[in-house]
């Protein structure tokens, strides 16, 4: 029972704050709503037994990426915060995403596997926990992708410096 209550609270928080992100005119308010979304999603991760990922979510998304967004918003101080002016585009944009949502929802609901798929705590061997199991997989089976991810971040860092530099 507790799990359901927690899930619904987190889900409502995530959806409401996501709505806040896309409906606030001021980009700073959008960014602060997004902070709430990130924390709710971190809660969902905890519920799914992914504690390490939840910690990374708070550290990387809420701690680093969001601060980057806030920096840029405050650096540029843009006045054009609002929505696109043409109502027709507005309606089409919303309609397209509603259609996409129902496509996903119908796929999920028409599939018995998804409907009956149970969610519960992951079984770990004696002396194992989420972080230890995570590290075991990440640094053995996925070592090469991990190194490539670091290379990607290096390239992104150099690229960002080169692009944003005054010449």
């Amino acid at each position, binding site marked *: 029972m507790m799990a359901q209550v927690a*899930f619904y609270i987190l889900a409502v928080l*995530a*959806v409401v704050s*996501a*709505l806040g*992100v*896309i409906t606030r005119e001021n*980009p700073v308010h*959008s960014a602060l709503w*997004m902070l709430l*979304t*990130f924390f709710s*999603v971190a809660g*969902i*991760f905890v519920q*799914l*037994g*992914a504690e390490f990922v939840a910690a*990374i*979510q708070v550290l*990387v*998304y809420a701690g*680093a*990426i969001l601060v*980057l*967004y806030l920096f*840029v918003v405050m*650096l*540029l101080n*843009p006045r*054009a915060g*609002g*929505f*696109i*002016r043409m109502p027709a*585009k507005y309606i089409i944009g*919303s309609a*397209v*995403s*509603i259609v*996409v*949502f129902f496509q996903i*929802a119908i796929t*999920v*609901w028409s599939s018995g596997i*998804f*409907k009956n*798929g*149970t*969610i519960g705590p*992951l079984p770990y061997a004696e002396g194992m926990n989420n972080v230890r*199991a*995570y590290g075991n*997989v990440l640094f053995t089976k996925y070592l090469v992708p991990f190194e490539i*991810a670091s290379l990607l*971040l290096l390239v*992104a860092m150099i690229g*960002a410096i080169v*692009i944003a530099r*005054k010449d």
Partner: protein
Amino acid sequence: MELTLAHYLILSAVIFALGMTGVLIRKNLIVMFMSLELMLNAVNINLAAFSNYLQDMTGQIFIVFVMAVAAAEAAVGLALIISLFRNKQTINAEELNIMRG
């Protein structure tokens, strides 16, 4: 009603659709980027839910790779926005129509 995989998939679909709406209806490039992050978060929920359902750590590993890509994308994208603002004095997606898009 017990929590099933479908609960999490529907939640992620809702967040994905909201992010998509944000990309389509906003004209501020920074907020469009934020909506993109929302969509990536929805994907992450999906990965975590399937990781739990299949009792396999791989989904959680991929979440970290998605986060690395999101961080790289945010850094490069915001650098592009800064460069754009320096040249055009605007980040309004409607006014950036030099290529008649």
